[in-house]
């Protein structure tokens, strides 16, 4: 069987989709391609269908919240936005992994859905919607999957306390008071 030579994913992306690839990052041998939320599907489709890349298996979709209690809202250090969604793809042909990452805005956390490429994205995206409150546009069934349907809040956000109350400081007092249930007079 003829198998085309493996391509360097970064070089292939810069050559074919220069506008899509915003940045790249290599750490411990793992390649991360950073793209804008609007281009996620384009980038992933390219990685899936191009000869020499064929990242044909969706391993995982994970989301991370860069909120830090010490820095407060609006300051996410080196990161441009508060949230990031990472797509972990695997190429069964070449036995290697890649991560496509997109930073998501805090005020309108919306990313296009990946269910059109892999049906596997269905529940993974629902889990992120449930836990991080990031919506996936175009998803057919955007409902909670792990938490009860009437649950309030998104447990995996970093400002969601773990069974105790967040300590009030002057920087977060307004935000806490917005959600804190006080006894009615």
């Amino acid at each position, binding site marked *: 069987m003829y198998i085309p030579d493996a391509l360097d994913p970064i070089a292939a992306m810069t050559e074919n989709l220069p506008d899509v690839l915003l940045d790249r990052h290599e750490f411990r041998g793992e390649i991360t391609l950073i793209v804008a939320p609007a281009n996620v599907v384009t980038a992933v489709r390219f990685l899936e269908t191009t000869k020499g890349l064929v990242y044909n298996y969706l391993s995982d979709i*994970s989301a991370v919240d860069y909120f830090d209690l010490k820095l407060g809202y609006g300051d996410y250090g080196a990161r441009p936005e508060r949230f990031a969604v990472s797509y972990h793809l695997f190429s069964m042909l070449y036995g290697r992994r890649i991560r496509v990452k997109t930073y998501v805005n805090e005020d309108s956390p919306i990313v296009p859905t990946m269910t059109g490429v892999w049906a596997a994205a269905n529940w*993974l995206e629902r889990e992120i919607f449930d836990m991080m409150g990031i919506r996936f546009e175009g998803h057919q069934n955007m409902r909670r999957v792990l938490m009860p349907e009437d649950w309030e809040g998104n447990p995996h956000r970093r400002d969601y306390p773990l069974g105790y109350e967040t300590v009030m400081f002057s920087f977060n007092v307004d935000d806490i008071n917005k959600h804190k249930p006080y006894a009615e007079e």
Partner: protein
Amino acid sequence: MATMATKGPNLSLDIPVETEQALGQKQTWEGSLEELRGLVSDRALTGETMLLNLGPHHPSTHGVLRLLLELDGEEIITCLPDVGYLHTGIEKNIESKSYEKAVTLTDRIDYLAPMSNNAVFCMAIEKLGDIDVPERAQVIRVICLELTRLNSHLVWLGTHALDLGAMSVFLYCFREREMILDMFEMLSGQRMMGSYMRPGGLWRDLTPDFLPALEKFMDYFPRKVDDYEKLLTNNPIWRDRTEGIGVVEPDEAIALGLSGPTLRGSGVNFDIRKANPYLGYENYEFDVPLGEHGDVYDRFYIRILEMRQSVRIINQAIKRLPQASGSFRTENRKFTPPPRAELGRSMEAVIHHFKLWTEGFSLPDDEVYVAIESPRGEVGCYLHGTGGNKARRVHFKTPSFMHISALGKMSQGHMIADLVAIVGSIDCVLGDSDR
């Protein structure tokens, strides 16, 4: 009640009042059919087909899995899996613990294969912190992981056969599983939730009674697999119940994100131990069994063959153990505590000991993804550090979650009795799915 029919926009079909009442509003299910519009067929809205709740407390759902079935007679039109009843917030909990302390939580994710979760979490930490693991620790880890595979497959085989009416297989499987759990107790002091694997290696070295027990078991076990095969493999009732049921095509299986024996049953050659070797799996000789038809029987037979391959791997690992270099954990004192005897002699050891047990170790503010082949399939750990001693985010990609999400597709058009076979064949563990 009558207002139900006019609620919501663009109603093409009216839900008869009797159907709403038959659902027993406020009695068994506090919801309305409106919530299911689009998820079930329109015939369910008019009451032509029946909606039936299977689970969450049903013996054949292997835990607290709820399936909302739409039935036409006994035929399944739609199957909507509902998970989350066993959600324990393990990922959130790990964010508040230092890395070493979080290992104990990972046991509880997949309680039938705790060592696999230990391993994937420790390997993610080791990758993020660039910690080396000595060869001896790696070989012992391989032994433990393959024993875990046997342990998990035995529970799967027993319960799967029990679901389909073969009672005795269950008793035999649990007899052998008990021996594996006894060996885990020798290693870690605990039968199931051992937390034996730690970042940088293992909790302690093999105990003197472990290897003799393992060798004895390796001698005894293959004959027992023959026994299971005699009971099931060519049993006409078993074949009738499983052949041609729950067929998944290879491309569909990849798109659905299936992994492990469930994916290989469809003939897709994807085993992470071969495709992306870890812990030195490239040095062991073993085969990856593949199915042809993608039905329940193939998934069953692959797991039987996998048990034989695991025995093969363990036997090679036992031979490899005396030559394996290094200790049972890394000598890097920034990540593993010094031996107790050193504390009396070395000030540095005291400092390391104090730092590790008060603060723990710190890992960089970056991300890694590590995946290994658990008994159920690809279990992945996405770990994002903060630069401090706690994780910013840890996410486990678990095979059961993916398999249950595919259940709807797999069971369409089958009978209820076949659904029980399909649920058994994907080998789901609800703790694994809900985390």
